[in-house]
């Protein structure tokens, strides 16, 4: 198997440029962030922060200082409101399972939307086995949740609502303040969680102003290292831990704190929030250049998600009709452009993205979808290169499709 992969990699030799746009699924970590982390592996603060020796106390100091940075960017009241987890998936699991466990006896209803991240959907499906029922609020064709349906869905039995602030696939920025108010008006006891992984560092976000109970953030989505995320838990909100083990500085997540990853996450946050407005404008400009350029050069395409201010500034999701997504990602890769497709092959069928189906895309439209995210590290020339490669790649794959495929 790995022999095959070596051959696949060999086929990429001699590329004149490489542009990585698959920030959704993993990211490169910029040099300045890696450098910030390195000393904490073996030069200082490598101890366990709960132990009584110098490297332990150094670790404690480092963790507190860096947690404080993230807490302030997020708008926390205290740094105890932050719990680090190994990532977005784990933070979402902690939020949902921890909340319903703590709310035992108060009700068994959960409300989410049709386009929540897979981890949220899977946890709610798992909780069904324990008697919880989940209502999925529908979204419109741009991915905005239907607030009237949300209002209908919440009642006295509702213990938890979870809506991502910005959708990870199509970038839709939800009217989260209104949603929170609506849920709390109907049931003040219900907890409100938001997966803010695609919002943190990319759109204005202040958990205190939002009055949200729980919020997930992720390190790699802002180009920090993988393997770390965090859950914000508002002071006074009680949730249960979902893993057992040695408790250290964090009450809700056992195990030894990973000091270098926390430093990397804080450094990535600092860089995202330094010149925040300028960063956002830059990402938006590159993204729009990419979108306009593709629209100009390629026919039969569809933009998935909204246009303008209500879309995360880095996100672009386009369906190329008559063009199968996996084939297109391979063709693009062979030309140095790295993206992902919304569909994933299972045993018999290509499974379309649940997000694209929820906004009303047909299966064959979803199968040709490509997700791209730009960063402040991308250059104008990178986008020019992508705009050179995409039309040729789409043309070649459509040449194979020929008259087969999309019939309308």
């Amino acid at each position: 198997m790995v022999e095959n992969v070596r051959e696949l990699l060999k086929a990429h030799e001699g590329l004149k440029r490489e542009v990585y746009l698959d920030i959704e699924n993993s990211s490169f970590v910029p040099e300045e962030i890696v450098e910030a982390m390195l000393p904490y592996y073996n030069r200082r603060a490598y101890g366990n922060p709960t132990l009584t020796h110098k490297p332990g106390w150094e670790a404690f100091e480092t963790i507190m200082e860096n947690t404080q940075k993230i807490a302030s960017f997020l708008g926390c009241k205290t740094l105890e409101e932050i719990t680090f987890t190994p990532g977005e998936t784990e933070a979402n699991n902690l939020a949902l399972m921890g909340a319903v466990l703590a709310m035992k006896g108060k009700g068994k209803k959960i409300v989410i939307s049709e386009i929540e991240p897979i981890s949220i959907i899977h946890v709610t499906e798992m909780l069904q086995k324990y008697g919880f029922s989940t209502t999925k609020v529908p979204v419109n064709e741009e991915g905005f949740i239907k607030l009237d349906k949300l209002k209908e869905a919440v009642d006295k039995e509702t213990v938890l609502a979870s809506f991502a602030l910005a959708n990870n696939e199509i970038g839709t920025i939800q009217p989260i303040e209104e949603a929170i108010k609506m849920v709390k008006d109907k049931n003040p006891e219900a907890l409100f969680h938001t997966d803010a992984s695609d919002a943190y560092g990319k759109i204005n976000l202040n958990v205190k102003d939002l009055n949200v109970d729980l919020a997930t953030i992720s390190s790699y989505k802002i180009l920090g290292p993988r393997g770390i995320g965090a859950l914000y838990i508002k002071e006074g909100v009680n949730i249960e831990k979902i893993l057992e083990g040695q408790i250290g500085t964090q009450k809700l997540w056992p195990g030894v704190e990973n000091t270098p990853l926390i430093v990397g996450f804080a450094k990535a946050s600092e860089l995202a929030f330094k010149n925040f407005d300028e960063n956002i404008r830059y990402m938006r400009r590159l993204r729009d250049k990419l979108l306009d350029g593709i629209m100009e050069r390629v026919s039969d395409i569809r933009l998935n998600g909204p246009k303008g201010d209500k879309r995360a500034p880095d996100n672009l999701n386009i369906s190329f009709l008559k063009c199968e997504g996996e084939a297109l990602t391979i063709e693009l890769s062979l030309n140095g452009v790295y993206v992902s497709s919304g569909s994933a092959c299972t045993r018999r069928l290509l499974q379309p993205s649940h997000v694209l189906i929820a906004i009303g895309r047909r299966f064959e439209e979803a199968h040709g979808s490509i997700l791209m995210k730009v960063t402040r590290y991308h250059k104008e020339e990178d986008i020019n290169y992508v705009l050179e490669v995409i039309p040729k790649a789409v043309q070649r794959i459509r040449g194979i499709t020929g008259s087969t495929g999309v019939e309308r």
Partner: protein
Amino acid sequence: MSRMPLPYNPKVLELFRNPKNLGKMDDATVTAVAGNPACGDMITFYLKINEQEIIEKASFESYGCAANIATSSIVTEMIKGMTLEDAWKISWKSVAEAVGGLPSIKFHCGILAVGALKRAIRKYYKEKGVTPNWLQEELSFEEKQALEEEELARVLSKRMKLAEGK
């Protein structure tokens, strides 16, 4: 939804990059389609068959992944110059072997390619109004699988249409 690694082998990659016998054939004797774009998997075969029932030319078009493209392409190469009777004996396993093996979740691509081929052969005889004794009436495994996949696509799109109305 789960994602699995897809370590395509060099033969599949080569056929994906430089597919053989690609494109519509204007003077095809018979054309057959299998799969459905909703499944992300669809193949059209064009066969030029002579009076001795030998496949003189074969070509394909495909809407699908790299495995779909590679298996369709290899089938057109395998059957060129074959009698229809010999072409009928091709199994999806021999197609998978010919492309140097497929990841298990891509077996269905090889099955669909052979399903489309067998459909083409069946269609040829149906249009001619004859049934050779080697052509079994019961659908072959690959034809049945193709039908099943298409049925699945119909069910899914029906379910989607229902969902749209909510």
